[in-house]
Structure formats: C-alpha cells, structure tokens
C-alpha cells in the first residue's frame, strides 16, 4: 500500500482556542477512513484545512504525487449551490474548473449524475431540489473529476434512513477507486465502511487505527452468561467475574479462557443457563470508552 496523504502536526488556533491540536495521520491509497468524534471536536475544521480553504496555524498536509487542490473532491456538510443553475450545468462547471476538457466535461457530468441517481433530474434547476437530491449533487460535484482523494463532511447525517442507505451504498461503490476520508458522528455508518478510524476529541486525535486494532485495544472482551435469577448468577460467579442482574461477565485476557475452557466450567454448573455468548463492543461503546479515557 502506498501513502497518498501525509498530515503532520496539523493545528488550528482561533484566538485562544485550539480547535484542532497537533493532529497527524496517514491516508493509504484506496482506503476509507472515518473521522469520528462528537460535535465540536474539530472534524469540519480538520477537513477544511485538508481542502486548503483554511490555513493551518501549524503543521502540514502533503499529498504524494501532485498538487493537493487539483486532486481532491470535497462535499461540505451543507453544500450550497447556485439555485439558478441546473444539475448538469453545475456538475459540468465543476468538472471544467478542475481541468476536464470542455467536450468531455458534459459527458462526465451526465455520467456522474446518472451514477448518483440524478439522471432524470439533470436539467432541473437546483432551486427545486430536495435535501437528498442536493446531497447527491454534492457527491456528483465532488467525484466528477475523478479526484484521488475524496473528503466528505458528514455525508449522510442530514438524510433520512432511506437516503442514508442509498448514499452509503454509493460511497461503497467508490471505495475501490478512490481514497475516502469522511467525518461522521454516527458510528453505525463508520462501522459499515472503514479501513481506518480516527477519533477526534476536543481537537486532539485521541485514538487511531484499523477497526480491529481499536477494538482490541478498547474492547474488554467478555463472555456473557445469562442465568434465570440473580441468585444463581451470584452463586456461579467467581471472584474475578462481574455480575450484573442475572448476567455474569467473564473477562477474556489474551484470549484466555478459551470457549472450551468456559464450557467445561459451565458443564459443572447446576443452574439453568439461558444464553452464552462472546461479546464484542459496538463502535458506539468503544467510542464512549475512548471519549472517557481522553
């Protein structure tokens, strides 16, 4: 894998307040990275600096092979369009401003609009577009010139469940061709398409790695055993186990005990066992843990 983007020590200070503080990471080619964090964590500011719209106070953004500005596509959280243009006019203009030749630009624009599902609305004025349509158009203008890096700010947060599903599928379709960095505060979305996670909190990068790595670090893996009553649970639990209601949590440390060992222990147990499972935390839970740690 080759590195496409190298971000080093990125910092943005507004007056006294450090909105982004010493953020460094790498983006590998053709991977998806989710930038997650609560509202106000500095996600948008980070993305703005990557687009070049905002000058970093400190730090640098370097793109391998070529000028950053010419090789990115950006979708703001609330993209604003000139309402008196039609979708195809806008997309064509976007392509041409990124250096696509005039003849090709129109074709590319139509193809892209088709791809995002706006094929039959391409000649309609943007003024008449709904929120979901604008979001698709926003994606179209970000990908029409086939950028190496696609930056998306909360691409699905403002959409209803159906729209969210559709846009997510769209983005998954792009994963093979482009490097994607997107911010979100909705963790289910991040879980769905991501190779790398960046946790941002109060402007600092508090955790990063692949979903697996972060899981291993933060997920205290457990076996959960459900009993009929609280009494039974308490009686079964050894000193190292945790009890909560009629559940017993057996901690896994370095993959010990194995499921086999656990089952052996359970077989000697006189009470009714309702359920046994190995529990992995959802991203949501990991996120809460990361947030607490930081």
């Amino acid at each position, binding site marked *: 894998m080759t590195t496409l983007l190298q971000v080093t020590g990125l910092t943005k200070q507004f007056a006294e307040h450090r909105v982004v503080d010493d953020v460094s990471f790498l983006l590998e080619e053709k991977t998806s990275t989710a930038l997650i964090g609560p509202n106000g964590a500095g996600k948008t500011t980070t993305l703005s600096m990557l687009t070049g719209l905002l000058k970093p106070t400190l730090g640098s953004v370097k793109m391998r092979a070529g000028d950053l500005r010419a090789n990115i596509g950006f979708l703001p959280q609330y993209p*604003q369009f*000139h*309402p*008196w243009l039609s979708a195809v006019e806008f997309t064509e203009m976007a392509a041409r401003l990124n250096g696509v030749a005039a003849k090709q630009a129109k074709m590319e624009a139509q193809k892209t609009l088709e791809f995002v599902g706006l094929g039959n609305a391409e000649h309609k*004025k943007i*003024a008449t577009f709904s929120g979901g349509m604008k979001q698709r158009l926003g994606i179209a203008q970000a990908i029409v010139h086939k950028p190496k890096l696609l930056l998306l700010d909360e691409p699905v947060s403002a959409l209803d469940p159906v729209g969210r599903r559709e846009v997510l599928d769209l983005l998954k379709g792009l994963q093979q061709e482009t490097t994607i960095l997107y911010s979100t505060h909705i963790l289910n979305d991040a879980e769905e398409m991501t190779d790398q996670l960046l946790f941002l909190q109060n402007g600092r990068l508090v955790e990063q790695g692949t979903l697996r790595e972060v899981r291993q670090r933060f997920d205290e893996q457990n076996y959960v055993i459900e009993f009929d009553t609280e009494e039974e649970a308490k009686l079964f639990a050894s000193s190292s186990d945790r009890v909560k209601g009629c559940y017993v949590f057996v901690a896994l440390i370095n993959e010990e005990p194995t499921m086999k060992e656990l089952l052996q222990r359970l077989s000697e147990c006189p009470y009714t066992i309702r359920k046994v499972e190995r529990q992995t935390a959802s991203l949501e839970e990991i996120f809460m843990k990361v947030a607490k740690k930081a």
Partner: protein
Amino acid sequence: MMEELAKVPWAVIAPLIVVQLILMIVALVDLRKIHATNGPKILWVFIIIFANLIGSIAYFIVGRRQS
C-alpha cells in the same frame, strides 16, 4: 374617438408605456417561475401591478430570493 387618439403624441408616450409594460411583465413572469420570494408571493403580485414602476424595480432588488 379616432381623432382624439391621433392627437395623442404617440412618439412621446409609446416608449414610456412599452418600457413600463416590459418591466411589469418580466417581473410577473419571473415571479411565477421563481421558487421562493422574500415575503408572500401574492403580495409581490399586488406590488408589481399597482405600484407598477417602483413595484417592479423593488421586486428585482429585494423580492427575489436566491438561496
């Protein structure tokens, strides 16, 4: 009747009327097509028709909303 009409100095009046009419019609056509205005649309219809010259100009300056 015809004599009276002939007495009207058309060279003087016609351009004035034409300009006013164009302005009003264009304002009304645009109002019909436009998505959103500042203030209720029907209000602008009245303003354009009854305060014809000032009304049409006011519509183009403050009535059309672009975002």
